[in-house]
């Protein structure tokens, strides 16, 4: 089953320049960064709602973000036939 705590958006706190762009660009409203405060790091508040679009990674000016896929995406074991419907006789 889905690991509920998998965080797909890894932000390197040593590299991050705390600029707000990842919060600004995320289409899903997942990343929250306190505005006008260069001391605080962005926080991935809703990690399980990630689209894996990578916009945060693409816009990060210092390459502090890496998108990490969870095991169930990388090594997906789902039987595809379970997605194809159930016949009710």
């Amino acid at each position, binding site marked *: 089953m*889905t690991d509920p705590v998998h965080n797909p958006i890894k932000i390197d706190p040593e590299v991050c320049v705390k600029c707000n762009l990842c919060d600004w*660009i995320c289409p899903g409203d997942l990343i929250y960064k306190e505005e006008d405060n260069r001391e605080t790091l962005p926080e991935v508040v809703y990690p399980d709602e990630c689209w894996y*679009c990578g*916009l945060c990674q693409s816009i990060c000016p210092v390459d502090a973000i890496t998108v990490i*896929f969870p095991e169930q995406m990388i090594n997906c074991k*789902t039987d*595809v036939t379970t*997605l*194809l*419907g159930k016949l009710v006789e």
Partner: protein
Amino acid sequence: MTSSWRTVDTDVLVIGGGVAGCMAAIPALEAGLSVVVCEKGKVLDHCGSVGCGVDHYLTIMDSGPEWDTPEFLIKHVPELTDGIVDMAVTSRVIHEMPKVLRKIETFGVNFKDPRYNDYYRLRSFGLPGTYHINFDGTEFKKHIGQHVRKLKGTVLTRTMAVQILVEDGRIYGTIAFNFRTGEWLVIRAAAVVLAAGEVNRISLNASGNAFDSWHCPYNTGDAHAMAYRTGALLTNMEFVETTITPKGFSAQGLNALVSEGAYFINKSGERFMFKYDDKGENARRAVIADAVINEYLLGNGPIYADCRHLPEDILDHMEATLQVDRYTMPAFYEQKALNFREEPVEVSISELSIRRSGVYFRGSGLAVDTDGQTSIDGLFAAGDCASVSGGIAGASVLGHIAGEGVATFLKNHDGARPEIDMEEANATRDQAMAHIQADEERNLSWRNHEDKVRQTVTNYVGVRRNKKGLQLALDTLLALAKREPELKTDDLHGLMRVQEATNIRLNAELMATAAMAREETRTGSSHHRLDYPQSDDTNWRKFIIIEKGEDGPSVSTLAASEPLATKFTRKNVPADNDRKILKSAV
């Protein structure tokens, strides 16, 4: 939590800032109208389905050969859509393709391939010519969003429209809230364009992650749901769309794969597509999906996409452009330690969406006329929530048509807006805010609610349907509706998801209702009735139209040879509504 209202007045409100919404805003702004775009994302340059890029654009270019003319493509639309398509609207869209393409180029989008300093055009999805420009559209949306800002459109970000407002059959605004600040807004508008995209998060997928979807998972049928509640006519809601994706990651990319020449093979290594369509891998998306589904059901899975036979230069191009449609695709292959040049890639069908049933031009959503106007006066629709849809080109062109339509509408009509019925506004807000306020009675999470909808749709409303299954689904979906007052969330972000979850459920109910009505099978995986396995042109070459009835959805039909606008009873339908139906339309 309840605060006072912020009132916004505008000539035009656009709900959804993706390609269709921006392209609708542009002609309205050019006509000197004030335009407000209401958008759940934060930045217009990167929101919507192609905010992170796109690599194909379907268009006529009038480059010389006969196939590259509007007339030629229009002639083939009935076969591309199995005869169920609004030819009046589609003809106008196809005719305006070259004009809109050139206009987008003036915004700074470069459709040319740097290898040739020319357009690189490919054939795919059953189209009778190389209509798709393959290009680096990483910044496609950025240029369009920037143009809206340049023309001084107002953008309300992180703002979700909760309900559109209609009085005497005429739209006059919407109620919305900002899920970062908690501010509630009444937006009064003389005309509204719905461009909120398709319905995603409606079924299960291979990864088990509901937000891992082919298209934007934050597109949750908000336009369909809001319009349905106010009595607008919707059509083609029975058709589902699915695509083929690398197993585990529902990403875009099928178009590039098949148009560059990849094969699909089953576990025995058999290239099976020609068993299903004489175009092989160049069949329509719905046909490819149905073939893959059938191979899995025959026990021939796993199914793979195979690129090993392709020449080095094609593989190089595919590898170099892998990230254009989905930025993270190279990372996925890297983390999976898979080299698509040397190994076949295991594929799955994606989750389902209510969008355009795996074919071009037959959109599932709001019925529109040749100006993009819906059955409600002053309410327009474009993009993947409208009855004619065709990827980003369809969104661009119909969006542009709707924007021009709005400008014409406001020239010909009284732009006065009625006073907002604050009693209704307060009731809508109170009903929403009740989900966020402490109440022991409420303990249902939107995730749990959505999961049940997805399981129900996957099992009984998905790619294999019959009457008993659909009835079971409807019973379940209606029971889930009754529980919606119990939805509980802790924050404003969650309140947005609650709204989305209820919209998803409503759309699933509309889909199941329409699927029950269509007693035939049509277009591969998009409507496969096990109890009516054949297409029935005699009785079912018809649109199914769905609208709000007294006790839930009410279904009617219309011969597919008629424009959907035939069904409209707007007060202000122009007498020459059919003026743009072209002779070339079949």
